[in-house]
C-alpha cells in the first residue's frame, strides 16, 4: 500500500488557482510573458487610441475633438459613407454568397468546382486590387468607359461611392462566401429531403428550411463582411475619387495633418461597431449547430431542381465571370505598355527596383510574423486549453479581439505608443513584425484551440501515467500533434500578412516599405502598369502559399 503512494510533491493538490498556476513554473512564466505581450501589443494600442480621442496624452481631458467631429459635416459624411457602403456591400455579398453556395454545395459538376475556385480567388489578392481593375475597365479613360462614350457620348467613370461599393463587394465576397458555404455544406440534407417529402417544392424548401437553418452562418458572414467593409481603407483611397470614408480620412489626418487626436476620434467610431459585433458574435452567436449533421446521415445533398438551378446558376456565372475579368485585367495590365491605349506586350513594368525591394521586405516581415503568430498562438492555445490560468476567458477574448480591431485603429495605436519613449520603434522592421504578429496571433490561437478540442486529455494523462512530466509531455505529445495546426496557422497568417495594409501603412518608412503599400501608392498615382505588375507577382506568391496550404491539408489530412 505504501509503495503505491504517489510521490508527494508531484500530486500536491493546491486549493487556489494561483497555487495550481505556479505548480508548473515554466508554463506559468510562459503565460506571464504572453499576457504582457498581449497587453502591450493588442490592448494598449487600442486603449491609447481611445484615450487620445479625449486628448489624454497631449494634455487635458477634453471633448473638443468629438465636437470637431460632430461639427464638421466633412467627418459626418465620412461616417455615413462608410456605414452606408458597408451595409450595401454586405447585403449584396450575402445575396451572391447564398446563390453561389447553393449551386456549389448542391451540384457536383465541373461548373460547381469552378465557381468554388473563382469565389475564393479574391483572397489571394490585396483587397484593393479590384479598385485597380475597375479603374482599368471603368476609369476616366477605362476600356469600357471609352467604348460607352464612343457609342453614346457623355462622361462616365467609376470613381466615387459606387466604385468603392463595387470594389468592396468583390474584395470581401470570399469571407462571406466561405462562412455561408460551410454552413450550407454541413447542413443535414435529410431536412431538405423531408421538406420535399412533405410536398414542398425546392423554392419553398430553400425559403422555409435551408435559409432559416443557415441563419446563424449568414448572420456571422454578414457581420464579418460589414466590419471589414466599414474599416475599408484602401479602396476609398484609390477609387473613392474624393468621397470621404472613415478609415481613409483617419489615415489622411495622421499622414497629412498630423492630427492624431481627430484621427483617434475617427478610430473610435471604427472600433465601436467592431467591438459590439465581436462581443455579439462571441457571446450571443454561440455555434447553434441546429440542423447540422449528427452522426450517420448517409444522404447526399439535395440536387437542385431545374428552375432553381437556372436562377442560382445564372447569378453564379455572371458574378464569377466578373471576378475572373478583374484578375484578367490585372494580368493584362502587367504585361502591356498602357492597357487600353497601347496594348503591346512588354516586361518593362517588372523592371522596378523599388518594387522588388518592397517585395523582399514584405516577404521577410510576413514570414517572420507568420512564424511568430502561429507559434505563439499555438502555445497560447495549449496553455489556455489545459492549464489553470486566472482570467483565462478575458485573455482569450482580448487575443481574438486583436483579429477584429480595424487595422487603422491598431496602426494609429502603434504610432501613439511606439513613436516616443520608452519605445522608439516606428520606421523599423521590428515594429512591422510586431504589428503583424499580434494582429494575426488569433489565427494561431483559433487553429490551436480547435485542435486541442480534438486531442483527448487522456492522452496527456497516459503520458503522465507512463512517467513523463508535464514538460516532457508537452514536447513529446502536444508539440508533434500541433504541427498541422501550426502549418495551417503559419500559411494563413503569411498570406494575410502579405496583403495586409491598413495597419502597417502608419508604421513604414522609406526604407521599410511593404509591397502592398507600394502598390497602393502606385495605384493612387494611376501608375496602372507598375501597380498591375507588382500585384501580379504578389498574387503568384500568395497563390503559391495557398497551394502549399492545400498540399499540407492533403498530406496531414487536417482540414484548415
Amino acid at each position, binding site marked *: 500500500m505504501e509503495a503505491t503512494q504517489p510521490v508527494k510533491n508531484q500530486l500536491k493538490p493546491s486549493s487556489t488557482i494561483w497555487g495550481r498556476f505556479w505548480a508548473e513554473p515554466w508554463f506559468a512564466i510562459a503565460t506571464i510573458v504572453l499576457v504582457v505581450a498581449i497587453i502591450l501589443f493588442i490592448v494598449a494600442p487600442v486603449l491609447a487610441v481611445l484615450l487620445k480621442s479625449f486628448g489624454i496624452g497631449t494634455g487635458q481631458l477634453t471633448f473638443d475633438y468629438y465636437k470637431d467631429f460632430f461639427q464638421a459635416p466633412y467627418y459626418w459624411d465620412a461616417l455615413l459613407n462608410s456605414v452606408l457602403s458597408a451595409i450595401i456591400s454586405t447585403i449584396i455579398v450575402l445575396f451572391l454568397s447564398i446563390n453561389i453556395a447553393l449551386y456549389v454545395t448542391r451540384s457536383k459538376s465541373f461548373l460547381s468546382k469552378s465557381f468554388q475556385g473563382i469565389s475564393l480567388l479574391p483572397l489571394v489578392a490585396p483587397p484593393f486590387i479590384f479598385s485597380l481593375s475597375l479603374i482599368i475597365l471603368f476609369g476616366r479613360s477605362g476600356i469600357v468607359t471609352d467604348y460607352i462614350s464612343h457609342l453614346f457620348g457623355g462622361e462616365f467613370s467609376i470613381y466615387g461611392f459606387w466604385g468603392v461599393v463595387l470594389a468592396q463587394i468583390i474584395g470581401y465576397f470570399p469571407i462571406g462566401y466561405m462562412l455561408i458555404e460551410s454552413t450550407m455544406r454541413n447542413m443535414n440534407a435529410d431536412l431538405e429531403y*423531408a421538406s420535399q*417529402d412533405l*410536398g414542398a417544392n425546392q423554392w419553398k424548401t430553400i425559403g422555409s428550411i435551408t435559409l432559416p437553418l443557415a441563419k446563424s452562418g449568414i448572420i456571422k458572414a454578414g457581420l464579418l463582411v460589414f466590419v471589414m467593409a466599414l474599416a475599408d481603407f484602401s479602396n476609398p483611397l484609390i477609387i473613392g475619387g474624393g468621397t470621404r470614408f472613415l478609415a481613409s480620412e483617419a489615415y489622411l489626418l495622421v499622414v497629412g495633418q498630423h492630427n492624431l487626436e481627430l484621427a483617434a476620434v475617427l478610430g473610435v467610431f471604427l472600433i465601436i461597431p467592431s467591438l459590439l459585433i465581436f462581443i455579439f458574435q462571441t457571446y450571443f452567436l454561440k455555434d447553434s449547430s441546429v440542423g447540422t449533421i449528427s452522426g450517420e446521415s448517409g444522404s447526399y445533398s439535395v440536387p437542385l431542381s431545374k428552375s432553381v438551378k437556372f436562377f442560382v446558376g445564372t447569378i453564379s456565372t455572371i458574378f464569377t465571370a466578373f471576378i475572373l475579368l478583374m484578375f484578367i485585367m490585372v494580368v493584362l495590365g502587367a504585361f502591356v505598355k498602357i492597357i487600353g491605349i497601347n496594348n503591346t506586350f512588354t516586361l518593362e513594368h517588372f523592371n522596378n527596383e523599388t518594387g522588388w525591394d518592397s517585395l523582399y521586405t514584405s516577404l521577410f516581415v510576413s514570414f517572420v510574423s507568420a512564424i511568430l503568430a502561429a507559434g505563439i498562438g499555438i502555445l497560447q492555445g495549449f496553455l489556455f486549453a489545459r492549464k489553470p490560468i486566472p482570467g483565462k476567458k478575458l485573455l482569450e477574448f482580448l487575443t481574438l479581439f486583436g483579429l477584429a480591431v480595424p487595422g487603422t485603429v491598431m496602426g494609429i495605436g502603434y504610432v501613439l505608443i511606439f513613436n516616443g519613449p520608452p519605445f522608439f520603434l516606428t520606421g523599423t522592421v521590428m515594429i512591422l513584425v510586431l504589428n503583424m504578429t499580434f494582429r494575426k496571433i488569433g489565427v494561431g490561437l483559433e487553429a490551436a484551440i480547435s485542435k486541442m478540442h480534438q486531442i483527448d486529455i487522456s492522452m496527456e494523462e497516459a503520458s503522465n501515467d507512463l512517467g513523463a512530466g508535464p514538460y516532457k509531455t508537452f514536447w513529446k505529445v502536444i508539440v508533434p500533434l500541433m504541427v498541422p495546426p501550426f502549418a495551417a496557422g503559419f500559411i494563413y497568417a503569411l498570406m494575410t500578412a502579405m496583403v495586409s495594409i491598413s495597419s502597417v501603412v502608419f508604421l513604414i518608412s522609406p526604407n521599410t516599405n511593404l509591397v502592398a503599400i507600394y502598390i497602393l501608392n502606385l495605384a493612387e498615382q494611376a501608375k496602372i502598369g507598375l501597380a498591375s505588375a507588382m500585384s501580379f507577382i504578389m498574387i503568384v506568391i500568395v497563390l503559391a502559399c495557398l497551394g502549399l496550404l492545400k498540399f499540407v491539408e492533403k498530406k496531414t489530412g487536417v482540414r484548415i
Partner: protein
Amino acid sequence: MSENNFLELKNVCKYFGDVKAVDNISISIKRGELISFIGPSGCGKTTLLRTIGGFNKQDAGEIILDNEKIDTLPPEKRSTGMVFQNYALFPHMTVYDNVAYGLKQLKVSKKEQHNRIMTALSQVELDDYGDRKPKELSGGQQQRVAIARCLVLQPKVLLLDEPLSNLDANLRIALRKEIRKIKDKLDLTVIFVTHDQEEALSISDRIAVLNGGIIHQLDKSDKIYNYPSNKFVSTFVGQANFFTGYLQESEKGHYFDTGTIHFPVEKLKREHGEDLKIGEKTTVLVRPERIKINASSSLKGTITNIIYNGNFTRYFVDVENYELKVDVFNTHDSKKYKTDDKIGIELPTSPHIIRESMK
C-alpha cells in the same frame, strides 16, 4: 388485383458508379402490409427505400403505387411519407409547425389544418406537445413527431428508415409495438428498414432480406427464421450450425453423414418439395436451440466455451472438430455444465436444407 400489388417495384436498379446498390429488384406489396427490408449496412435497403420515396432516381425499372406510375415524380408529388433515421425534424419549428408543414403546401383551410394536426398528434399520443421545439423532446417523442408529420398527409405508403436505431434498447421495443399498433389502427401500408433482425422478426408481416443489392428471401418471419433459403439469410437472421454431407441409409433408417459426424434424420425435403436422394450431397442448417444435450446420445462433444445470456446459455461444443453452438434455456432445474465437460449431443431429425448462395 391492386390490393395485392398496391406498391409494385419492377426490375428497379440503382447504381453508384460501379456499385450496384440496387440490382434488379422486383417486389409486390399488399395494401395494409408491413414489410421490412433487412440486411447488413451497404446491402441496398436504404437506397431502395429512398428510391421509392423519390430521393434517388432509379437507373432502370418502374415503381407503381396504387395504379399510378410514380418513378419519375419528384418526392413532393409522391404520396409517400418518409420517417428519416435521424427524424429530420425541422429544428427551428415547433412540433405543431413541423406537423403543419406538409399541410401548408396544400390548399387546406386553416380550420381543417388544425383538426388534422391535432388528430395526427393524438394518434401518436403527443397532444400536449405542440408548442415544444424538437430539441426539447426525448428521442422517442421526436420519433413519434416524425411519424405524425407523415400521417397528417395520409400517405399511401409510410417509409421508415431505421427509425429506432438511435434509441435505447427498452424504448426500441416499446416503440416498435407502438408503430405496429398505429399501423394496425390506421391500416397503413408500411415499409420498415432495419438492420436489427429481432426488430424485423417481431414487427413485420413479411421480411425481405437484402444483400449486395438483391433480395435473398422475401417471406413471413417464421419462414425466414426456420426455412432460410440460403446461407446468407440463415446467418444474418439468427445463429446457425451447418453440416455439409450426404444422406445415407441403413437398416435403422436414414442418417446424415458429414464424414466425421452422423446423425439420424427423417426424409429431407429440398426447396421445391422433392425428396433428397440417398447419396446426394447437401448442406443442412440446425439452429442452436434445436440441439439438445442428452447424455444418452451417441454423439459426444467437449464444451470449449460458455456464454451466459440471461434467459439462455450458449455452449460452444467441440464435436469431431466441428464447433457447434448449443443454446439451452435457463429454467430453474436446468443442469449447469462447465468448460471441458464431456456431453452427449442430440441433433434434430429434421434439419433444414439450404443453398450455399443466392445463385
